[in-house]
């Protein structure tokens, strides 16, 4: 008898624990933040008025150095503005941002908003998972943005989110090293440089002792999340400002591409770039710059000037918090060289807050709320703080207003350089159909990135990579869909 009781109590305990398990989950608050967008609003759809409670989920990477520290404040401010709405922010690192988002998208339950580059929009439109905000974005909202960046967030006829900033991807130089090497960086900032000029310049920046190179002329991050940057940015200044030409032919089969690949390989063979380039990731390229191991680093964002200044201050303070073995650096914005005699086209990037839908179509009300949240994040005070941190230009009227009272300490030369580069920005291409865009992204992931790794490691020749890309392009677009010159 005693044992039956023991058994019963055991089973009771087991049942209790199982039900406790199903009850306690991660984000399962009563707004169902982790379930598809619709169920959140389904609970709220009882009342027809706009005051119904709703939660908007956002997946955000460290957009600026202090961005993620501000999450709590952002959630509070949003709730203060719209008392019936809750903004739930989930942080991600740059490295696993894509992975996380894709996993959730493909499971049919993505976050309502995610911060990504506008070039990724076509992929999600193709899957039908990007949310068109055209009918819920009020004229007040859309009117706040500068026309050019807003274009980047469009695909076909739909508007899939709001832009946060328009950035120029450039290179960053160490002023002292540049001057030591006799490079007139002021002229370069104004007039740009061709590949040949660039090649010679970086050779001058190399410092060797015997067999060991203690300082390289040029370093560019190519590992991890940065793997697409190198080619992507350089290609724009090589006569291929987008993956497709104006008549929608795939551009990376042009002979310019082959020349670009050859030039990139050449810089490593010259000894101006480390032969372990394929293992340099974003953290390392900045580390090498700060420790004086390279004269020029890439990619260079305007905000790096800020980071360099901060590290200089730490060195001055001598409190041990500066990067180990780092030196004081004056950061100079430098344009990307042009290849194959092409006209300079800056790699302008518009990143922003893109909206998503789950398996179930969200209610009109929830859509409107998503638009409100996306607008909140990309304009006004939030945008002003973020963009200032990033040294990025403000692209909303409200952002400019909010920023008027904030001071930033930026070198005038660098500001002018960025302006120059912005003047030949690559134009937005909402005319590229989502299907083609998605295919181009696939080729980039499956062929270009792996082959680039091998090219940088010196294992294949530029011709091999070019042939592989061409073959994949023909498979995807047919002989007529590619550029042949």
């Amino acid at each position, binding site marked *: 008898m005693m044992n039956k009781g023991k058994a019963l109590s055991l089973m009771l305990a087991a049942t209790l624990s199982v039900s406790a398990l199903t009850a306690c989950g991660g984000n399962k608050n009563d707004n169902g933040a982790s379930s598809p967008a619709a169920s959140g609003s389904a609970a709220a759809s009882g009342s027809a008025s706009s005051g119904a409670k709703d939660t908007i989920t956002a997946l955000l990477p460290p957009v600026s150095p202090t961005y993620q520290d501000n999450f709590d404040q952002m959630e509070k401010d949003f709730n203060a503005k719209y008392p019936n709405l809750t903004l739930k922010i989930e942080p991600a690192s740059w490295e696993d941002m894509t992975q996380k988002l894709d996993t959730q998208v*493909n499971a049919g339950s993505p976050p309502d908003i995610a911060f990504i580059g506008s070039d990724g929009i076509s992929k999600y439109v193709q899957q039908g998972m990007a949310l068109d905000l055209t009918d819920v974005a009020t004229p007040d909202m859309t009117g706040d943005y500068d026309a050019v960046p807003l274009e980047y967030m469009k695909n076909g006829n739909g508007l899939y989110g709001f832009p946060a900033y328009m950035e120029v991807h450039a290179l960053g130089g160490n002023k002292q090293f540049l001057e030591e090497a006799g490079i007139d960086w002021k002229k370069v900032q104004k007039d740009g440089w061709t590949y040949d000029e660039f090649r010679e310049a970086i050779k001058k920046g190399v410092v060797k002792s015997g067999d060991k190179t203690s300082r390289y002329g040029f370093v560019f991050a190519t590992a991890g999340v940065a793997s697409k940057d190198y080619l992507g940015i350089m290609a724009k200044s090589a006569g291929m400002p987008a993956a497709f030409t104006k008549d929608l032919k795939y551009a990376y089969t042009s002979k310019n591409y082959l020349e670009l690949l050859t030039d990139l390989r050449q810089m490593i063979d010259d000894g101006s770039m480390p032969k*372990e380039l394929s*293992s340099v990731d974003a953290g390392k390229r900045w580390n090498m710059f700060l420790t004086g191991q390279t004269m020029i680093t890439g990619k260079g964002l305007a905000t790096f000037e800020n980071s360099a200044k901060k590290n200089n201050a730490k060195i001055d303070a001598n409190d041990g918090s500066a990067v180990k073995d780092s030196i004081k650096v004056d950061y100079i914005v430098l344009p990307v060289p042009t290849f194959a005699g092409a006209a300079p086209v800056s790699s302008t990037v518009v990143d922003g807050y893109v909206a998503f839908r789950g398996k179930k179509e969200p209610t009109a009300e929830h859509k409107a709320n998503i638009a409100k949240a996306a607008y909140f994040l990309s304009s006004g005070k939030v945008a002003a703080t973020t963009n200032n941190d990033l040294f990025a230009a403000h692209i909303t009227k409200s952002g400019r207003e909010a920023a008027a009272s904030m001071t930033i300490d930026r070198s005038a030369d660098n500001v002018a350089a960025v302006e120059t580069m912005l003047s030949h920005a690559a134009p937005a291409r909402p005319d590229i159909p989502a299907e083609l865009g998605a295919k181009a992204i696939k080729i980039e*992931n*499956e062929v270009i990135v792996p082959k680039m790794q091998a090219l940088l490691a010196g*294992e294949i020749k530029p011709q091999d990579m070019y042939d592989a890309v061409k073959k994949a392009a023909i498979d995807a677009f047919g002989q007529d869909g590619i550029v042949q010159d």
Partner: protein
Amino acid sequence: MAQSAQPAKKSKIKGDGVWDYAFIAVALIVYAMFTAYPVLSAFIISFQEYKPLGSTYIGFDNYAATFKDDLFWRSIKNTIVYTVLTVPVALLLSFLVAIMILPLRKKLQTVFKAVYYLPVVASGVALSLVWLWIFDPMPGGIFNQFIGWFGAHNQNWLGSSATAMFSLVIMAWLSSHGASIIIYLAALLGIDDSYYEAADLDGASFLQKLWHIVIPSLKPTTLFLLVTAIIGSFQVFQNAYLMTGGGPDHATTMVGLLIFDNAFKYFEFGKAAAQSLILALIIALVSLFQFKFLGKDVDY
């Protein structure tokens, strides 16, 4: 009723009907839901093209695409290379180490057993972090410093295809022996002394005893270890994923990693399911082959 005259026949109790099934109920339900169902489901999915808003049936396309896919065959080759380089060496090393531990005092034996098992206890993620730093391609990387003592140039261990696979193999050689060593040791201790005594009478040497007594007695153990190691090695994924990501240019893409990439990077679930079933078939065939040719006189 148990009669003392009965030989040592293990008789089973006639069950109480309900209780028999009750005892295995939970295990069976978990198995059905989380193993059996997914396997069947994998069959179905392998005939579909997955889309988040609703999959479509495409017949054998996934299988056809897989067989035509160069990358798939390459990954099979990579996996075979990895298996051939790691499994026999690992078994041999474990065997040698076990033989060496054998004559030591019990306390010392336990110390060494614990020492070799320790890396198994640490997680793969933690170890991969450490190895990443050991393999750092800059001249300051630990491994590069080590070979620097011998005057060799620093290598891009994980970034160049000549050395990437080799690096993963070294990692395997140095970390996964604990379990096999202990198993071999236990098996060695189980060999009856009378065999040795008989051999000693015949004046057999150490090597002769090794060859004629030890190795044959260890055959079932070796077979077990070989089969499980190969099954495990064919599924290897974690180290490649965390350390090289399958690169450079797919030099270290194993089948397990390819399936993962197809499933969770490119979200082509149908293709991934088809490939995983093909992998299962390959593993089954290889295991069958091993049992047939190596396990002739082993009853397990």
